[in-house]
């Protein structure tokens, strides 16, 4: 079993719902976001914008796991890379080693509160009880392991049953995110990747990410009249230009 995610770039409507859902699910401090919506402009006079919803790739050959000097970052049997916050010393070697830069060091200035110096919201108070973040440690997306584990314990199927599926996948209004077992050839995610030529970011690093991008056409324009003409295939996914 290897949990993975597919991001269908043609479906993404850039609504930031995945980012918001993650913040709510994990009570993320305002200065930090586990998933990111990356926007890229290409072309000079008539620029086109393409977006990528990115997050920790849960690499199978994860450089962050290899370099962690304390074992705080480790890989579960289901392929998900997690961080034990109680073991992290905050050396940030994992941040340095990640070719995708999808880890964040939680410094004091990133955890000032939603309304610094004014008021602590009920949401923040709840977060301190339910999902404690430790300033001085590194954090990243964990595919909502809490939901997966709790769901599996109830006999639910992640990617199929909402209760066992990552929050960002559940909330995506455009159904651009698909979650499932990459080792199961009959799963929805495996089918999508196979049929739509899903690709991983920077395969040249041999990290074998568990996040795939589907229909990776770059230059997908926000302007309807430009859409059909402006789509450009990347020379090769993840390669340099």
């Amino acid at each position, binding site marked *: 079993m290897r949990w993975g995610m597919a991001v269908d770039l043609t479906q993404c409507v850039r609504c930031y719902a995945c980012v918001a859902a993650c913040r709510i699910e994990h009570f993320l401090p305002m200065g930090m976001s586990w998933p990111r*919506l990356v926007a890229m402009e*290409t072309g000079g006079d008539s620029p086109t914008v393409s977006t990528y919803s*990115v997050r920790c790739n849960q690499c199978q050959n994860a450089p962050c796991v*290899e370099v962690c000097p304390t*074992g705080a970052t480790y890989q579960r049997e289901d392929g998900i890379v997690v961080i034990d916050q109680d073991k992290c010393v905050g050396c940030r070697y994992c941040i340095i080693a990640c070719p995708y*830069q999808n880890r964040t060091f939680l410094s004091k200035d990133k955890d000032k509160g939603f309304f610094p110096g004014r008021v602590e919201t009920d949401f923040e108070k709840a977060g301190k009880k339910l999902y404690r973040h430790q300033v001085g440690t590194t954090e990243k997306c964990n595919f909502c392991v809490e939901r997966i584990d709790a769901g599996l314990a109830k006999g639910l199927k992640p990617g199929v049953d909402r209760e066992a599926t990552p929050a960002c996948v559940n909330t995506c209004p455009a159904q651009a995110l698909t979650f499932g077992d990459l080792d199961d050839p009959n799963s929805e995610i495996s089918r999508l990747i196979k049929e739509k030529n899903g690709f991983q970011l920077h395969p040249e690093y041999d990290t074998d990410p568990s996040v795939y991008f589907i229909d990776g056409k770059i230059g997908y324009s926000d302007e309807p009249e430009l859409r059909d003409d402006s789509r450009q295939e*990347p020379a090769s996914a993840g390669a340099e*230009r």
Partner: protein
Amino acid sequence: MEIHEWMINYTRQTEWIDRRGIFLWIAFYAGGLGGGLYLVSLYFNSLWGMFISWLIIAVIKGAAHLIYLGKPLRFWRIVFRPNSSWLARGIIFVLAFVVFAAVQLALSFWLPGTAVEIAFKVLAGMAALAVTVYTGFVLNTVKAVPFWNSTLLPLLFVLCGILGGFGLAVIIGLNGGNVNVAIAETGSRWLLIVNALLIVVYLWAAANRETTGKKSVMEQMRGNLAPVFWVGIVALGIIIPLAIAFSSYFVSEVSSALLVTGVACEVIGGLALRYCVLKAGAYKPLVAIAG
């Protein structure tokens, strides 16, 4: 940088040089300098040199590492995974050096010439070499940063550390320490030449490694890092010390003040070298950019 602009272009690493990352830069340089000085001091059998190198590593490097960590009280956890992380190995080397060198210093002071003292000199010397070299491996194993991903980096750091060690040894010799200043100067002279050549080869190799590597090199030579590179590394780190070294060799004996100036320039050059190496490390954009 706005959150949606993250990694759309070549992105410089910031964690290990900006803001509190400055302490890691100091720690990395202190390791090289302290280790290099210890090795040079072993050659000259200079107790003062050994003691100063111990202070540099135990106090400056140790403190800088602790200040940098997000959770310094968990420091002890680092030493338990030497099989995978160069950072863990490095800290073990540092602890080993601090212990072995402390015992050696005590033995050299109270029981000089004994077999035990020699044994601890060997152990501390090996640990010092490891402390000098490990930072190169910490960086060169990071595949994500092509500028660092070079086998030359550990060699560059070791030679730079020993060069700094020769420089400090000159000062110790001038102040009555047990150092032959003429030999230390000769060592400095040769290492300056080798270091300069190695820096050129390193930059040339990095520029030809990948587009990202070339960007890192260009950033140093023509970008925001150019003042640090040309003034810090080239002028202060190489040209001025070389000029002083050759004037003392070909012309006449130079004044102590000039020698000290040369050593200060060498130290600044070493600091500038590590600063540029750390600061210029960059990642590829997350996605391919259509041409």
